[in-house]
């Protein structure tokens, strides 16, 4: 049953509940607008994927108490070009990078606490600042500020219709527990993320591989508003079948696993598919971010599953994991526990062990083995043997709507929606058409969110 209440007049309606939405709402309110923020999630799960964020990337010319040394505009731009291989809008990238220079003090002024790199156990990071307590603490602080300065916050509220005409957004329909409400804002800021939690859409984009995907973030990134925007004529950017996909523990939750389920120990062992066959060089990339390269590979495996196999020494070299590895005293017994063919796994392991050539431990590689293990090839010999089943974990897709430098949504014909602004992951593909940089998600959300909020307030004041 649904009822429609009398339409409510407000200046700026912000759709979403993550860092982009909060920064937009706070910026708009501080520019004098009356603001309502509608978050699809309940209070306990508010915050979108910012809940799983840890740090954010920022340009800075000098050291601050939360980030050492300096990280200049050109260095930031080079990093962005390197990971996107050119799939970035240079104008928006400049807006992002220059905006990042002032975002830390702005967040601090709005209650967010940043961690001193000298305390705790986090490694020294020249390019990113860390939230004290992580992304959820940051989100809590911004919600507290938003409430204090008079922003109306509604949880469990989903935008179900977004009518547009004459290049304008009109009456927005919001559903809250089956009760619908009509809101007529002067300006709309859409900060409700991509479509990575919509299984049906993922199947459209990724085919059968979608069934094996684990969604790492919030289940509320349904892409419903993104779809409505596209249907209303917004210009798409990026590719819905491309995403940031990493290797995650197959035993983790199907959504919302966040950071702890990623498997970071691949160089310490061998990776086999469900036929107990190796399929890629595990030593190729020994950097801490290597797991980000394995997501795509596992997605290509039969059944979208693979297994990391280590011996006791390999496990000791690895970082701790959220779920303990599956252990057994022999390779055959481990195979049984994993549901693999014991003879096949034994043959693979034997072949791997036999192919190891001499040399220093770290440089040690296999000889005459396909695929090779080019670094850290150490025999799997010491029980107990340990294994992690792995699946591809989707963080976000490289797909969204085009925006101009004022964060206005651009239509396919090149014109703009005059009062519809977008920020955060719903428009991230404009600057991040491919790849990922640590801490870029929050930077993008905060910088573009703040900008979109200010522009929306200016529009509403006209």
């Amino acid at each position, binding site marked *: 049953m649904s009822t429609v209440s009398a339409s409510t007049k407000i200046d700026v309606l912000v759709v979403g509940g993550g860092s982009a939405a909060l920064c937009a709402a706070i910026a708009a309110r501080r520019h004098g607008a009356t603001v309502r923020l509608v978050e699809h999630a309940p209070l*306990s*799960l508010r915050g979108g994927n910012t*809940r*799983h964020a*840890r740090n954010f990337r920022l340009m800075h010319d000098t050291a601050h108490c939360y980030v050492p040394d300096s990280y200049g505009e050109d260095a930031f731009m080079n990093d962005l070009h390197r990971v996107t291989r050119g799939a970035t809008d240079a104008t928006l990238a400049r807006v992002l990078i220059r905006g990042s220079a002032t975002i830390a003090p702005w967040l601090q002024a709005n209650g967010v*606490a940043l*961690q*001193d790199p000298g*305390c*705790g*156990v*986090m*490694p020294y990071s020249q390019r990113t600042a*860390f*939230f*004290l*307590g*992580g*992304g*959820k*603490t940051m989100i*809590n*602080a911004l*919600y*507290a500020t938003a409430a204090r300065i008079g922003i109306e916050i509604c949880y469990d509220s989903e935008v179900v219709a977004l009518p547009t005409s004459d290049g304008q957004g009109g009456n927005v329909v919001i559903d809250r527990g089956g009760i619908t409400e009509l809101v007529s804002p002067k300006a709309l800021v859409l900060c409700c993320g991509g479509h990575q939690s919509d299984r049906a859409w993922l199947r459209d984009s990724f085919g059968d591989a979608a069934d094996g995907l684990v969604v790492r973030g919030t289940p509320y990134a349904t892409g419903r508003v993104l779809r409505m925007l596209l249907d209303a004529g917004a210009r798409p950017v990026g590719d819905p079948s491309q995403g940031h996909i990493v290797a995650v523990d197959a035993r983790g*939750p199907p959504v*919302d*696993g*966040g*950071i*702890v*389920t990623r498997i*970071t120990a691949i160089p310490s062992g061998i990776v086999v598919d469900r036929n107990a066959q190796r399929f890629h060089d595990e030593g190729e990339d020994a950097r*801490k*971010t290597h797991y980000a390269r394995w997501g795509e590979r596992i997605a290509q495996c039969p059944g979208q599953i693979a297994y990391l196999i280590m011996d006791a020494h390999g*496990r*000791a070299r690895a*970082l*701790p*994991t*959220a*779920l*303990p590895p599956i252990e057994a005293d022999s390779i055959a017994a481990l195979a049984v526990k994993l549901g693999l063919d014991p003879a096949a796994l034994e043959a693979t392991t034997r072949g791997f062990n036999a192919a190891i050539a001499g040399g220093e431990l770290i440089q040690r590689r296999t000889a005459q083995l396909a695929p090779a293990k080019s670094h850290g090839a150490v025999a799997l010999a010491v029980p107990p043997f340990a294994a992690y089943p792995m699946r591809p974990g989707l963080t976000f897709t490289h797909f969204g709507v085009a925006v101009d430098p004022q964060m206005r949504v651009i239509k396919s014909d090149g014109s703009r929606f005059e009062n519809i602004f977008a920020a955060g992951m719903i428009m991230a593909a404009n600057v991040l058409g491919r790849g990922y940089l*640590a801490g870029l998600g929050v930077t993008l959300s905060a910088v573009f969110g703040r900008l979109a909020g200010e522009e929306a307030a200016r529009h509403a004041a006209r």
Partner: protein
Amino acid sequence: MPPDDLEAERVLRICTACMYCDGLCAVFPAIAGKHDFAPNDLTYLANLCHNCRGCWYACQYAPPHHFAINLPNTLAELRQRSYADYAWPRWLGRGFGANARVVAAIVGGITASMLIATLLLVPANVLFAAHHGPGAFYRVVPWPIMAGAAAATLLSAMLAIGISAASYWRAITPRAGTKAILRALYPAVLDIVTLRNLGGGGPGCNDADEKFSQQRRWFHHVMVAGFAFSLAATLIAAFYHHVYAVAAPYSLTSLPVLAGGIGGVTMLIGIGGLLLLERRADRALSAAAEIRLNIVFLVLLALVAGSGLAVLALRETAAMGLVLTLHLGIVIGFFAILPVSKAVHGLYRSLALLRAAIERARPRRSGDE
């Protein structure tokens, strides 16, 4: 493994893989890079936790998330068990279970027997008379009985807690030489005295909700300061008695009375604040047994301070005899129950902070990403 330990292991594994809270308190650096948690490690971590609740509000995996992490509650349950496990003599451990009843029975019993003994042994015309001048108190309760009973209970309590703390330390001792331990003493004492770990890495604790506050830290400081003043008053009075040979009661402007009066009032302010925070706090983030232990201890401490102030207020009147006996009963009862009270946390937490300081001095293990 007991179910508490299994749950702690499950939760701490997720925490080591996450580490977003590493700036909040000493617990997270202490688990960095750990693959497994032995029961004695859990005992150590449980007492290192100050139950500031920062990690609950920061947790991306808090219920209703699939992982349903509630680290403050998990560690509080373990902490309560460790109090019972390391109690000496062993049977004393049971006193932590039904703490309110045990404490009420012991303190009530001691106080009642002292009142009855006074009524039976002190002639009514002495007990119900107003006494003045040096030695007034001892005309009701003779000094050897007063000092003897108090000292005997306090010393036996200190012995029991000392032996408990020694076996706790044996269980959690890090592998470190004497030099390393001595080097860690100063930073550890600093952590103990400043309650740095009730600061959430700077902004403060989460006393009631996601807002930060330093209230818990300050009220604890105020209460301890009041206790220190009261202790100083007793020591100064003992000095007056033995060295100057001047017997109590002392004048209102004398050092023991001033220190005792300030101490009593300060303690009551601190206790009131802590009780108020206990009322406002989310109970799901602690253990039921811990909340009970806190409240029982705070109420008893308030009775000690309050009855002490009552003696001061009524010492010139005919009520002095009974009020004095009542205060003595509560004080001696308080001493008697110290080994089954929240007082034990002071030593356990201090030792845990010492181990943390020793481990902190070691080279830092690199993090990830």
